[in-house]
């Protein structure tokens, strides 16, 4: 309550507790560093922190070097995807004012999946390197269509977008399953992609989506003050010279770019985009500038730790990070349900 009423003064939130935010920021950075270290250390062949240090500084024998370096791509992907999902979730929850909003709701996952399935089935695309472009195109195209449906008839509104996303996801899901079930080869590509995993993707995926992620992130940072103004209500924001419609539109565009980048690179991953913004709000309050900064630290941390857990749990096999996040995130959500007030 108090935090909410203070958003009005915008900057006051920052001045209110800089010491606390520095402490929180330091904590997040340390955790992120630990997550990165864990991500290059653990796997089917465990290595020690000393090994990692030797490899990074250019020493270390060939075998350990190969092992450690093979974990660089997935660590980089985890950093990027975690950041994208976290920031996209923050934007969507801020714009829709729906605490359950997350990237999957805009139809991004379904769009990317449908594009991959269609490209494999009808255009003979195969392998990571080709499908990632299709996934990106599909995710972006779905984002656009969802926006068009959601704003049909003049009006617009976040609830409409989410409903439009749900509708499009259902229709695309039917298409995906129909094609996948009638063509075994396509089914194979699809079922491996749809689980959501950081492993086996390589640096190509990272470089392919990086530009989209960068544009989305820059847009998010630029929009933060506008989002702060909008938290007081559209009317007050308008009186401060902020156009709510423009902020919403640009914010959803940024969220679409970010989630499309993440989904194309690593497949659909649940709950990171949902949970991280909530954690961050507890930590830093309602200021969107801080929220975006902190989600871009906390998102990667969470995703990398989930990936490490997945690697260690069933060693020498591994559990895909998408499965881990669902099994960590869902119980947290179920626990939070009890604290919801009244009937929604």
């Amino acid at each position: 309550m108090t935090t909410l009423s203070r958003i009005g003064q915008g900057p006051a939130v920052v001045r209110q507790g800089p010491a606390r935010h520095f402490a929180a920021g330091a904590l997040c950075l340390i955790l992120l560093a630990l997550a990165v270290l864990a991500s290059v250390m653990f796997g089917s062949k465990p290595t020690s922190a000393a090994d990692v240090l030797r490899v990074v500084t250019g020493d270390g024998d060939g075998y350990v070097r190969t092992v450690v370096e093979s974990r660089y791509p997935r660590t980089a992907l985890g950093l990027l995807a975690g950041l994208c999902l976290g920031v996209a979730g923050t934007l969507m929850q801020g714009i829709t004012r729906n605490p359950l909003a997350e990237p999957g709701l805009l139809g991004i996952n379904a769009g990317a999946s449908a594009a991959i399935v269609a490209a494999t089935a009808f255009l003979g695309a195969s392998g990571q390197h080709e499908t990632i472009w299709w996934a990106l195109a599909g995710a972006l195209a779905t984002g656009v269509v969802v926006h068009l449906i959601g704003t049909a008839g003049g009006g617009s509104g976040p609830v409409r977008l989410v409903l439009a996303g749900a509708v499009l996801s259902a229709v695309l899901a039917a298409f995906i399953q129909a094609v996948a079930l009638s063509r075994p080869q396509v089914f194979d590509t699809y079922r491996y992609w749809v689980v959501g995993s950081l492993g086996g993707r390589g640096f190509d995926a990272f470089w392919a989506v990086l530009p989209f992620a960068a544009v989305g992130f820059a847009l998010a940072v630029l929009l933060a003050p506008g989002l702060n103004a909008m938290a007081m209500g559209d009317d007050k924001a308008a009186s401060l010279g902020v156009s709510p419609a423009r902020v919403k539109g640009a914010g959803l565009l940024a969220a679409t770019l970010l989630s499309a980048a993440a989904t194309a690179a690593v497949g659909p991953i649940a709950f990171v985009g949902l949970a991280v913004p909530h954690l961050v709000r507890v930590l830093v309050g309602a200021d969107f500038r801080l929220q975006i900064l902190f989600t871009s630290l906390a998102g990667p941390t969470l995703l990398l730790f989930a990936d490490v857990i997945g690697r260690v749990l069933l060693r020498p096999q591994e559990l895909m990070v998408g499965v881990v996040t669902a099994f960590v995130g869902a119980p947290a959500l179920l626990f939070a349900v009890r604290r919801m007030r009244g009937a929604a």
Partner: protein
Amino acid sequence: MKTAERIDTPAVTASRPVRPTGRSLVRIGPWVAVPVRRRTAIAAAVTLLLLLGAAVATLSLGRLGIDPADLPSALMGEATGKNAFVLNRLRGPRLVVAIATGAAFGLSGALFQSVTRNPLGSPDVIGLGAGSGAGAAAAALFFPDVVPVPVGALLGAVIAMAVVYFSTGSGFRNPGRLVVAGIGVAAMSTALTQYVVYAVERDKASALTAYINGSLAARSWEDATTIWLVLLVCLPLAALLARPLSIVEMGDDLSTGLGARPARTATAAVSLSIVLSAGAVSVAGPIAFVSLTAPQIAKRVTRGGGPHLVMSTLLGALLLVLADLTAQQLPLFDNLPVGLYTMAVGGAYLGYLLLREWKRPA
């Protein structure tokens, strides 16, 4: 409190003839009530006729179809050779299962939407379909020859609903919490399902995926008995709930004033809805969107208030039989699970509903 309600209630009753909203029409005397009832009766009769037509088409279309001229005698038990095989093994049980499963989904959705007052509310939304899919997948991966897949689906649905029930902290009473808990349960179930589909061999994964989308292929008379029993037990219970439900739809305060006990009615309706859906899922897999669309169409056809239990039941059966007819006869794809057709058509219909609603000037 008491006095306030006593003053309120007559006031509302008095104002009703002045503002004849859809929901009050049924209850304000014979003159206004008759047209609504007649409309519902006609709609029900038309739906039944369409259902009959779809059933005849299901039995007689296609290469193996029974000639409609032979159908009456075949149904009297005089079928021989190919016709007997088609009627007793291939399409007969499938049709009978489709009718009851569709009816169960339709009724289940009507009960659930009446409680949540949300067109998107259906047992699928609180994770029943996803839970049953995970149950089926887990049975296939971990206990391949011990637990049959349909039993796994039923167990999965029951476990998912138990988790939802206990995690809300208020049972099935609070629709908002139900939906959120459902999202969590569905996410976990989907993750488990996808993991299994990833981990098993391709053929097995493919069969499993077909089942998880909801299929009516190769159903037996045992399946038919199961789902008809569930339906016949639940129908009278639903009829008992119809009246309290239509009162509860007026809002918690008013219905408490009228003595309807909203919390208890909600719990009973959601529980019944879950039993119906779980029964349907155990014989046919989680078929999407029937429980969501049937009550919506019913509402538009009858143009009345209340939970539309009868019309939703009939329309559910009609929708599923039509979808299965398409699945059997459409030459485009071979033998796709019927759940894919309901998903595509139901999703498109939902989109159409939303678009139409948004185009209307607010």
